[in-house]
């Protein structure tokens, strides 16, 4: 808000930019003080980089699309196959690296759909209120009263297994978290004097909701979205592990662990490495989310 107030006061565009740059520097300093946040940022950047250049850095790109090399099946980690090979001779390292892109897509689609559905509903429930708001909140409560994984399994068992259906199912049960979050924030923002001022000059309720209330909820939404990238990836991997998510030869981490499970303990690398990839990815997004919260939304801690 302060940037906007200053331009009203007659300062130029240049002043605004300098102010924004100073703010960014301050945020970066707070963020950089915490080793865990930096570790999270590095993990996420590494994850994004691997997702981006994956197809060009893997030794056997065809192994992620159903190639079969029975002559080299179930070999242990070696110089040629860093993470070993699976039961059809595919390179596990190649599949784990290319699985990064699959997980990134899954995480993004679920988080974006959930936010697009949940945020407007939360603003309506928190600021517009009334009977509509009440109904939205009750429906939200019902969804929150069943663990996301259970509801997702129920939806997938109706739609049929597969990665697209798994993503649809998870997105369908993921939005209520955003309604709750935004509803709470919107209620708080409504008490602020600039919202009262907007009301006094005759601005409509819907317009106030989206011009004044929503932008002030952005920080917590961003923090939650960062955390959700990790959790959504974890949930999709869980469905993959159960066998209701991605199907072979799609290099999805959860499904890989599920197949590798049949080859424990002798061929341990088949399950071990994809799991490590999930762990590091989710850890990265969680730590990043924590760090962002310290900077953007220091009042809420949990």
């Amino acid at each position, binding site marked *: 808000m302060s940037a906007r107030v200053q331009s009203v006061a007659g300062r130029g565009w240049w002043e605004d930019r300098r102010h924004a740059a100073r703010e960014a520097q301050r945020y970066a300093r707070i963020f950089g003080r915490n080793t*865990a946040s930096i570790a999270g940022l590095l993990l996420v950047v590494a994850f994004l980089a691997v997702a981006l250049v994956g197809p060009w850095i893997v030794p056997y790109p065809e192994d992620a699309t159903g190639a079969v090399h029975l002559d080299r099946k179930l070999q242990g980690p070696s110089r040629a196959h860093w993470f070993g090979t699976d039961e059809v001779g595919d390179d596990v390292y190649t599949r784990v690296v290319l699985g990064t892109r699959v997980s990134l897509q899954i995480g993004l689609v679920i988080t974006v759909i959930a936010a697009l559905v949940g945020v407007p509903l939360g603003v309506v429930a928190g600021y517009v209120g009334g009977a509509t708001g009440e109904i939205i909140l*009750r*429906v939200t*409560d*019902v*969804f929150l*009263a*069943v*663990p*996301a*994984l*259970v*509801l997702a*399994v*129920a*939806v*997938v*068992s*109706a*739609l*049929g*297994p597969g990665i697209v259906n798994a993503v649809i199912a998870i997105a369908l049960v993921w939005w209520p978290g955003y309604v709750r979050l935004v509803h709470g924030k919107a209620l708080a923002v409504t008490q602020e004097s600039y919202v009262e001022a907007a009301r006094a000059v005759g601005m409509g309720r819907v317009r106030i909701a989206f011009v004044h209330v929503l932008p002030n909820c952005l920080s917590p939404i961003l923090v939650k979205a960062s955390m959700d990238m*990790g959790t959504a990836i*974890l949930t999709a*991997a*869980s469905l993959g*592990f*159960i*066998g*209701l998510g991605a199907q072979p030869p799609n290099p999805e981490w*959860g499904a890989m*662990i599920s197949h590798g*499970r049949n080859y*424990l*303990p002798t061929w*341990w690398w088949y*399950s*071990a490495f*994809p*799991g490590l990839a*999930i*762990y590091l990815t*989710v*850890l990265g997004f*969680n*730590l990043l989310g*924590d760090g962002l919260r310290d900077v953007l939304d220091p009042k809420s*801690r*949990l």
Partner: protein
Amino acid sequence: MKAYVAARLALLGVMLFGLLCVTFAITYLVPGDPARLAAGPDATEEMVRTLRARYGLDRPLAVQFTTYVGGLLQGDFGRSLRSRNDVRDDLLRFFPNTLELVTLALLLAVAVGVPLGMLAAAYRDTWVDHLARVTSVSGVAVPAFWLGLMLQLLLALDLGWLPLGGRLNLTTPPPAPITHLLLVDAFLRGEWATLGDGLRHAVLPVVTLCFPALASILRVNRAEMLETLQQDYVVNARAHGLSEFRVVTKYALRNAMIPTLTMIGLRYGWMLGGTLLVESVFDWPGIGLYAVNSALSSDFAPVMGVTLLIGINFMLANLLVDLGYAWLDPRLRRTAS
């Protein structure tokens, strides 16, 4: 307090109705015409129509919903396509196993998470605190099914210390049922060998299921303790010369427990979801494994039965937490009613 309990019970009714609406709606997600699917590919129009009439699928939605709810109220959860069993009987058979698993995991999570969170806050930035923080960030990031497999690999397959899965060895006869909770029954009947075998089988699933919950309980408790340790009454208690142990356990912990209690309730529900994964890994004969196996063979009625059962359990847990809250904190009690 009475008014508050009444209001809270009314809300539970509304939520249950909503849950039924959601499960009913999910059954409508099934692509295609269920009557045609049931009739098979060679069925004539006539046969499909007959089936549709028999299952009431030609009636208006409101009537179908009423029939559905009426059936559930009489304990009719439908029939499993695979086993032809009544879903209700299956749920009654499998639920005690899940209840034991979740209860043990929750007890362990609280027993370790709360003291560790307290210690981490009291000895901030020492090695205890670092250990607690690593545990809390790892616990929520590690995939439970993978952790389970790795524990199995190390402790059951490699070292052979613990059994791989199941509830009892094949040679151990289960105790005659009293409560249908295997460990409790073995204890009540004094069958110590069975009890020991059951406990050995429980170790890995309980630890796996408890880890994420332990992590978040620890995290909340640590954060709350750090906050309460700064409060005036704590400073005051110290100034009066009370021992640090007393200050931490009596003055700070009690107040930090209120948000921790919320997390415990929440985690109970999430654990019920986690049983789908953990029971699959350890072949634990509970409702989670039942739901997964049914979902994999497109056997719909058991999946919906488990969804309802878990939803109802979670709602009841939330009710207990809210009532516990009101009981702990008189201020809430007054504003709520």
